[in-house]
């Protein structure tokens, strides 16, 4: 890479500005959830997908629909139900008449052929249907009857799920969970936010958002992220954190509560999201703090609790907290 390819301060400044514009635009219609909103944008810029978990009624779907609108990308919504079939998601070949009136078999694209996919209540569908998204999420393509079709980028799947303890839910397979870049927890709004929600949603005036970005801008931001350097010591720190999630690790005090630890996708997620965190903070390199911030959403769905963990009501977040305390930066 020559000097002309060097990233300039101006480019970084534009990145930060665009990021803030996106965030502010979404916050116009989504009360609270600032961190959630940031993390979803980070996920998008890192070319990842997010699993958003929370009890019904907390604005998950509203947030994602707003994001799709603001980003100016083609978005679709799939409401997952127990009788939903894979073909309902990815599409299927159908016998249709063409313009000349001849019967032909044509592929009818499913809702997955969009750029922002809202997979609402994904854990209400059967695992078979849930797995229909695997190829799309990992390889950004769909294969039907031997024909592979590429999905247009930027592509992001934002899946919501109710807590798995709820009635009529199917836990996501580990393989699919691992495909999600982030797992984000939607928390209850506080008193102030509840007041704002009431004010915003019960008045006659309806606030709408308009697209302020496009796929070109998004891709440019994505490329800028990828070249952010990571210091060696910071990279090693992320590796040590990942290794600490493994059951055989002696770091922290929760190893016995872990059945399966995070896969290498976990550290990829931490580093990539750390780059976004660094750049949106105006830094040109990833720091230890970025890794620590990225650890929770990157690892919590990749840590599978053991029976003891479930019985003792240990959450993955507690385990990550213990690991972050135990692992030294250098």
């Amino acid at each position, binding site marked *: 890479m020559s000097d002309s390819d060097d*990233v300039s301060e101006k480019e970084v400044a534009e990145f930060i500005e665009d990021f803030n514009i996106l965030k502010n635009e979404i916050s116009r219609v989504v009360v609270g959830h600032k961190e959630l909103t940031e993390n979803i944008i980070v996920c998008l810029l890192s070319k990842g997908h997010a699993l958003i978990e929370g009890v019904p009624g907390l604005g998950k779907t509203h947030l994602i629909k707003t994001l799709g609108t603001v980003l100016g990308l083609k978005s679709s919504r799939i409401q997952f139900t127990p009788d939903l079939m894979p073909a309902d998601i990815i599409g299927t070949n159908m016998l249709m008449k063409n313009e000349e009136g001849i019967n032909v078999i044509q592929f009818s694209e499913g809702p997955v052929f969009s750029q922002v996919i809202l997979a609402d209540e994904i854990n209400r569908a059967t695992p078979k249907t849930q797995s229909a998204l695997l190829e799309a999420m990992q390889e950004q393509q769909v294969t039907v009857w031997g024909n592979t079709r590429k999905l247009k980028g930027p592509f992001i799947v934002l899946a919501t799920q109710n807590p798995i303890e709820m009635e009529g839910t199917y836990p996501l397979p580990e393989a699919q969970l691992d495909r999600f870049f982030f797992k984000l927890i939607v928390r209850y709004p506080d008193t102030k936010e509840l007041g704002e929600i009431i004010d915003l949603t019960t008045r006659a005036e309806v606030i709408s958002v308009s697209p302020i970005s496009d796929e070109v801008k998004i891709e440019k931001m994505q490329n800028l992220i990828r070249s952010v*350097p990571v*210091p060696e010591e*910071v990279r090693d720190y992320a590796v040590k954190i990942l290794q600490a999630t493994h059951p055989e690790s002696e770091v922290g005090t929760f190893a016995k509560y872990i059945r399966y630890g995070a896969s290498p996708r976990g550290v990829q997620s931490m580093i990539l999201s750390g780059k976004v965190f660094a750049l949106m903070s105006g830094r*040109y*390199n990833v*720091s230890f703090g970025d890794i620590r911030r990225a650890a929770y959403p990157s690892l919590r769905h990749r840590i599978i609790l053991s029976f003891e963990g479930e019985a003792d009501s240990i959450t993955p977040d507690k385990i990550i907290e213990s690991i972050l305390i135990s692992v030294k*930066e*250098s």
Partner: protein
Amino acid sequence: MGKISRLKIFADELIRQKRITRAIEYTLLTSFILLSAGIVLAIPLRYFMGIDIIMPLSIYAGSIILSFIYGLLGIENPLEVLKDTDARKFLNQKMSAAFQYGDSNNPYSSLLVREAEDLIENLSAQQVFHVRFSRRDPFQPLLLALFLFLWMSSFSLLQISDQALTNGQMLIDTSLKIDAVNSDEEDRNLEDIAEEYRKLGQKIQDQFMSEHSIEKEVDKLSRKLENKIEGLSRKGVDKQSQTFDEDLDSEIFQLNRKKEMSDELNDILQSLMKTFSLSPDMVPGGVRKGDGNNSGNSDQESAFSEEKYLDDSGNNSLGKPEDPSDSTEIEQAPEQDSGKSEIQQESNNEGAGNSQEPGSLEGTKNDEEPGTHQNPFPLEEPEDDMAANNTPGTEEGLQDNTYKPLREEKESGEFDDGNIRGELQEGEQMKSFIRALPHIVDPTLEEMEVLYFYRNQLENAIDRESLPENYQSVVRDYFLSIGVLNE
């Protein structure tokens, strides 16, 4: 590389500062370790090895200088040094990230270097590499003071008495005596012993030893000398008992010489032991206390001594006695040499008389083991060589001291030999045999000198408190009767 020139300059400053910091830290650590070890070893080194303070102080100073120099050395990479900066300033991360993909492949390098340059504007090398004092460092002066105190106070422990100093001089004198005794060039071991005595004496003179260690060393050397004496004596006795051929007369002479050396060394040793209040492991003559062959060796030694003194007096006519019980050979000796002196005849008579006296004593005082040779004067606690050599009951002691009185009696005709021989009883006689060397060498001692020497030894022996009470009077009466002792 131009864009990192400022960083390079800063890196050079960092390297210098890092080296100085490292050198100081090494020095402090080395000093702490040496002082800690020095405190533990101060007194033992001074007390037992006699090391002067110059040496430990030299080691201490040399070590910390070397550790300081070692700290200054080293090869530092400027980039590594920059990465090694304080993490709170994030300069290390900037540098690490800027050169993550090499010097020019990172599109963010220029931005990171610029950030790093801005950081170093307000950052000094001393801030990055400042000397970090550990908790132990403030204790260093205390440790040094403690070390010096211990070392100096050990001198008071080493104050040795004037008596000890005198003893040191005596040891040096002893070494000279041993040298004087050691005229035999074949025996180099005595030289070593003399040298050891000399060194020990010099060490005491230099006050490099405690009184306890002085005693220990002297005792050790005395044991060594005792062993040597014993070796000389045993060698002489063993050889002599096996060698009575005339062809080996010269060897016998050498053995006699060794015996003399043994006796002289014994004198030196006894004198030394008396000075240092040490108890000997063996009685004079080279026989150890508690040795199972004690009496046997004494007998052999006595025979050897007889031979020597007969030889000294010039009457070497006696041949080798093949059978110790055969006294006829002894009696025939004067006949074989018609030119024998009077003393020789008297000696033969005396030998016969002595062979009866112990038997007589044993018969009257101790009837428990008839027929055995009972030594009436056990060699348990010899106080000095004179007393030990004059052990009553041995053939040597009894026989040699009768030379002069017997001759006088003969001349005056006032005494009868029967008065001094006791009663002859079968199986209880102690037979002695006198052997003389052939006429190979001239006598080395005057006859009277020998007699007076043994008389003195005899008097000392009789005055010894350790003699059995009953035997004192018997021995005194005996020697009074033969005129050797005065009333």
